[in-house]
């Protein structure tokens, strides 16, 4: 690092410029990563945080899953409930509806109504017993959006319901807060219920508590005419989640690739600029390996400084904006992309400084 540190000191303008570029790219990548995770949570936290192990959709094996299209029947629910390797099976209705709290100014908000059985374990914090005919349990986000608290009356899809409790945790489905209502109430909201409820669709999916292996679950699916997936897999059944997540992930991937190319291009030009100096050092007896180590060390220093400052700035920005934007602030959303930026940047720099091996020490004898 003898030469590397002195080059950094001597060419501080150029390296500062490069570091600033890295800071900006890192702010973009890490903030986007934080936003991607936040949007994913806003889209699917009500699915991934369910206390069940699996969800059974009324779709044949291999078909695309959708909470919008799935309608499980009573027979399918009961088929799963009857299996010995399933400790519990509960129907779960999912529908996006309109809600308002007339007493709090009448603002109408979109919410996702989860229809559950009385005493259901699918309601957070043991609030399942609060879900009865004529009542609703609201998530913290729904309570905030509607301006309603426990004991207030809210209007959900034209049904007047009393807020029995506000769940301590947040739950969101497709960017809308969740409210929990009785399955009968949920069925009365529209196409999923009515006269058909005795024999027709009873809910959207069946939530399963099971430790059965894939083979046993496949047999259960074949018998019930369903498709069973884990909770993370069920995220793809939330409309727009896959497209939204893929778009943001592709943007991050492009930014990572661009940053590696920018670092590679910078160090290519830098190495070419100092080819004469490197030829002299080689002529003095310096080995290619030691020069490559020195140059790579320099690149890693610049990368760590730029990425470190960029990640810190993005974390501060995310912390300030977390009330207005759905962001997640944790080691995975900031540490992983930052580590990837350093790793890919090092690869880019390595590709550039490798040309040191081709520098001929004989060139030191030429006048320059």
């Amino acid at each position: 690092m003898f030469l590397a540190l002195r080059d950094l000191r001597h060419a501080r303008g150029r390296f500062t410029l490069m570091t600033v570029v890295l800071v900006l790219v890192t702010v973009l990548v890490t903030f986007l990563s934080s936003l991607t995770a936040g949007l994913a949570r806003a889209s699917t936290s009500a699915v991934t945080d369910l206390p069940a192990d699996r969800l059974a959709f009324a779709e044949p094996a291999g078909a695309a899953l959708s909470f919008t299209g799935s309608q499980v029947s009573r027979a399918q629910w009961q088929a799963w409930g009857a299996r010995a390797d399933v400790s519990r099976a509960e129907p779960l209705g999912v529908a996006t509806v309109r809600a308002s709290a007339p007493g709090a100014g009448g603002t109408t908000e979109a919410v996702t109504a989860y229809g559950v059985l009385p005493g259901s374990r699918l309601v957070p914090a043991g609030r399942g017993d609060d879900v009865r005919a004529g009542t609703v349990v609201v998530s913290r986000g729904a309570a905030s959006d509607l301006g309603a608290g426990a004991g207030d009356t809210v209007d959900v899809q034209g049904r007047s319901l009393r807020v029995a409790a506000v769940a301590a945790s947040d739950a969101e489905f497709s960017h809308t807060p969740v409210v929990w209502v009785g399955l009968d109430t949920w069925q009365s909201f529209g196409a999923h219920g009515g006269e058909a409820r005795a024999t027709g669709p009873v809910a959207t999916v069946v939530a399963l508590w099971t430790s059965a292996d894939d083979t046993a679950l496949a047999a259960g699916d074949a018998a019930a005419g369903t498709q069973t997936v884990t909770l993370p897999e069920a995220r793809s059944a939330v409309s727009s989640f896959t497209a939204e997540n893929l778009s943001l992930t592709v943007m991050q991937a492009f930014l990572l690739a661009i940053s590696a190319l920018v670092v590679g291009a910078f160090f290519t030009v830098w190495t070419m600029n100092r080819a004469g100096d490197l030829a002299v050092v080689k002529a003095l007896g310096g080995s290619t390996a030691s020069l490559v180590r020195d140059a790579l060390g320099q690149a890693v220093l610049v990368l760590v400084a730029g990425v470190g400052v960029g990640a810190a700035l993005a974390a501060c920005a995310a912390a300030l904006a977390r009330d207005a934007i759905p962001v997640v602030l944790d080691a995975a959303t900031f540490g992983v992309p930052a580590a990837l930026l350093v790793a890919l940047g090092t690869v880019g720099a390595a590709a550039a400084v490798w040309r040191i091996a081709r520098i001929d020490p004989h060139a030191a004898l030429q006048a320059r």
Partner: protein
Amino acid sequence: MDLHLDHVTLVYPDGAGTLTAVDDVSLTVAAGMTTALLGPSGAGKSSLLAVAAGLTPPTAGAVLVGDAVVNAPGTRARDAARARLAHVGLVFQQPQLLGSLTALEQLELTAVLRGRRPSSARGRARELLAAVGLEHEERRLPAALSGGQRQRVAIARALMGEPDVLLVDEPTSALDTARGTAVVRLVTTLARERGIATLLVSHDEDTLGDVDARVHLVDGRLTPSLALTGPG
């Protein structure tokens, strides 16, 4: 230790044919002596210096420092670099100082290349800078030094590794006669004091008053009557 060039030949590919840049040159430079290698442009002086320095392997013959062969046909670049570190100090036609290093750091670099900490070589570096009259310029970057000062830093740098052999390539080409003469005098004095066999390439005879011997290279061959030089 003496420098021996033993029947050194260097042939380059040249289009469809070949070009003999150095043709069967044998030369011994004794320890402490400075031999000037003279000749017109294109005579092969720089090619011979490149072979002596291990920057180019010869087509035939060998370069020895004392009894050790340091460059011969088939010598790998890595081994030649190790031999340079161990035995050879190089002064180039231009000073070839690194722009980001101060005068003192130019000398410390040679210690770093030998796997030593720069601070461990600082005392010797200062001593050498004083020996070339630059003890007050150690913190200056090359851009802040004059041409003559830069060349003297380059000479001090070449001596940092305590070489057995000093190879100097036209050190006066960018200097006027007075400063060129001073530089040659500095090289010969330091070589004599430190027992270094020195081969100094030059095309400027006016600056060579202090050298111990002169040899002439014409068309890659030494002039026969002047080929062998040594003390006394």
